[in-house]
């Protein structure tokens, strides 16, 4: 019986979160607050992927803004074309360009293609990039720096291509979301619900992955890559899979961010934005199932609330909060809370590990 609690406990926690996000939140929050919560959910979706790659896989992915941006811009391009109407072209191309649309925009008129691209583009990009990185056994700080540099390059490229991507201004002024008018509060609520639903779905997927052989291999690769190799597995493939899944999740988060925030611009996908995602994961607890998502929700909420209460000093408060949490609870707030409640067994190791030591117990 105890093992059933252990097995399905996390699933119950996910179900509770689902009820909170999908039933309680819409009935108690104002449309504005609900929309904000939707924005935090987008970051949380990306954070779930980071939890997989970093918490379980040990890969400090500092450039998830790139994949967040791929999804965000893919969706934004579709929404922009939807706003322009059939045959129409986005307003900024008329204002700042020569009034012609680059050919690669054209497929994004199709909603189906856009949805496909939101999953396929980051997967392909991450697969190519990951293959090159992991086969060469690049890891640790080098991997972190490489992914961070990727985010800088991506944002610079966006800023430099005003006529194709809107440059520094980004893409905004969306009116329709797959036929639904975004100015209608009912439809905004629907977009929120889809986002919250996607977050829950990602959590369930990750829960299933953590329990699978892949999940065990991932942790094993993180903790002792050479031993995994001796056992006949290629750690590069394991890492690659986690990296690709994390990229797709970031892209899904970005795709929902565009209609919810009403804008996607380089400052939402650059190096700073990428670090902001990492910060949420670290705060919540990177190796725990719910840690990354709850951390990202908390950071998003904290950012909005602190900046409303203290418009002049909020950045200092947020910074101080991070320092305190990382110093006092290196495994994240959720694990600290869990330990306080006696739900987790006391650990000897300071480093966060999987909820259960891999494979060793049975």
């Amino acid at each position, binding site marked *: 019986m105890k093992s059933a609690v252990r097995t399905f406990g996390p699933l119950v926690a996910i179900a509770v979160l*689902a009820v909170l996000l999908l039933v309680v939140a819409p009935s108690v929050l104002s449309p504005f607050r609900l929309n904000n919560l939707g924005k935090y959910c987008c970051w949380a979706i990306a954070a779930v992927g980071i939890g997989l790659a970093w918490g379980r896989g040990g890969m400090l992915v500092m450039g998830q803004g790139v994949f967040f941006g791929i999804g965000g811009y893919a969706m934004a391009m579709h929404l922009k074309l939807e706003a322009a109407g059939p045959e129409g072209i986005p307003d900024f191309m008329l204002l700042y360009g020569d009034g012609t649309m680059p050919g690669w925009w054209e497929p994004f008129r199709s909603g189906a293609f856009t949805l496909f691209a939101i999953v396929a583009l980051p997967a392909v990009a991450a697969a190519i990039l990951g293959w090159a990185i992991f086969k060469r056994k690049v890891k640790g700080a080098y991997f972190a720096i490489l992914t961070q540099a990727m985010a800088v390059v991506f944002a610079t490229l966006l800023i430099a291509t005003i006529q194709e991507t809107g440059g*520094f201004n980004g893409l905004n002024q969306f009116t329709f979301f797959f036929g639904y008018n975004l100015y209608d509060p009912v439809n905004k609520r629907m977009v929120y*619900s889809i986002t919250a639903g996607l977050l829950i779905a990602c959590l369930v997927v990750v829960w299933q992955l953590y329990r699978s052989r892949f999940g065990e291999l991932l942790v094993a690769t993180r903790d002792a890559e050479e031993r995994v190799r001796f056992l006949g597995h290629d750690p590069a493939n394991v890492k690659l899979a986690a990296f690709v899944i994390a990229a797709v999740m970031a892209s899904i988060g970005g795709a929902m961010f565009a209609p919810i925030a009403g804008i996607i611009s380089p*400052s939402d996908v650059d190096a700073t934005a990428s670090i902001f995602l990492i910060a949420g994961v670290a705060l919540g607890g990177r190796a725990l199932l719910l840690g990354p998502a709850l951390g990202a929700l908390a950071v998003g909420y904290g950012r909005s609330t602190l900046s409303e209460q203290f418009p002049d000093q909020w950045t200092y408060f947020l910074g101080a909060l991070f320092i305190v949490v990382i110093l006092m609870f290196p495994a994240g707030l959720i694990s600290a809370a869990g330990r306080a409640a006696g739900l987790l067994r006391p650990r000897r190791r300071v480093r966060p590990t999987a909820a259960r030591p891999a494979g060793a117990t049975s």
Partner: protein
Amino acid sequence: MIERLPLVHHSRSRLAAGAVLALTVSLGLAACGNKDSEGSSAKSCVDTSGDTIKLGFLNSTSGAMAISEQTVRDSLTLAAEEINADGGILGKEIEFVEEDGASDPAIFAEKIEKLLTGDCVAAVFGGWTSASRKAMLPVVEANNGLLFYPVQYEGLEASENIYYTGATTNQQIIPAMEFLADEGVETLFLAGSDYVFPRTANKIIKQYAEELGIEIVGEEYVPLDDDDWTTQVAKIVEAEPDFVFNTINGSSNVGFIKAYYEQGLSPETSPIISVSIAEEEAPAMGKDVTGQYAAWNYFQSVESPANATFIEAFQDRFGSERPTSDPMEAAYTSLYLYKNLVEAADSFDVDDINESADGVTFEAPEGLVTIDGDNHHIAKTALIGRINSDNQFDVVWSSDGPIEPDPFLEGYSWWDASAE
């Protein structure tokens, strides 16, 4: 191969996972959308029953733009305090709610929605970058709110819900070109940040230059936050233009000015005319920029009773060493224009205000300004100033009175928006 780990009861766990997903989907379905909606039926929640009226000040007080936008916040604060001391707007005292845009367009969009729907402010004042304005535009339109935007910009925009109190291109860029033509300039070099404003400004400059017979001998862009102008300035040295038209934004100017002087250029050989260096920025350039030019609609040196009062009040409130600049003046003016708009309409309602907006005036520090009811911009006088050794600007040229705003350049036959 390792043995399959006996930890997981796969069939049971799949079932449970499926149950959670099914729960999620069914809960989500409860919130179906409405495909036939006509958009928002935004009802204003502005409370006009009390003794106060709420206004929102939305400027970046953190991030890269804070250094500029804080000056705007200060002059808005001054204007609010002055209006309150003078009896408020329609007898109601201004209660201002401050928010930080954090130099991030997405945050501007979030905060203006919070101000309009959460705090129920009657109008919002702020924004600086075009990115922040573009981000706020759909929100302010969806909620039928009001935004007062105080910075000169690239034009090509007009919204029922925004009042633009800075210059559009025909009140700054085009007059600057007329000044250059009057000076007998024959060759011009364009240097700008890789951003919407410089790109649009240069598109206008190039087309007008052809009309005026001025030759463009070079055009260079550097990313917004990049400080290295060495190679681009080398091209200016080589081209020996009569003038350099500078549309660089923010701190990148410092790197440009440094390279310009280090490579031996000077106001005697190839002077610079800037559209973003004002009293606040001139002393921060790290070089003595005496003799360089700038195009604005206000300088601290403008001689008028209204300006003398403004400078004195500002320096009393924030310190005698603080200069006043064009965006600060435009922000100060925007709050007074709002007061006059409300009093002309005798109402805080957005539709009532727009109805009676045409022709509303204010005796601003820059001179008399008048609102154009069609495009919500204001008629302004264009000025060219030359920097003196006190980092103040001596006005050397001005337009013949206020210029009517023309954000889409409809009155200029040489303008072709779709040209490359």
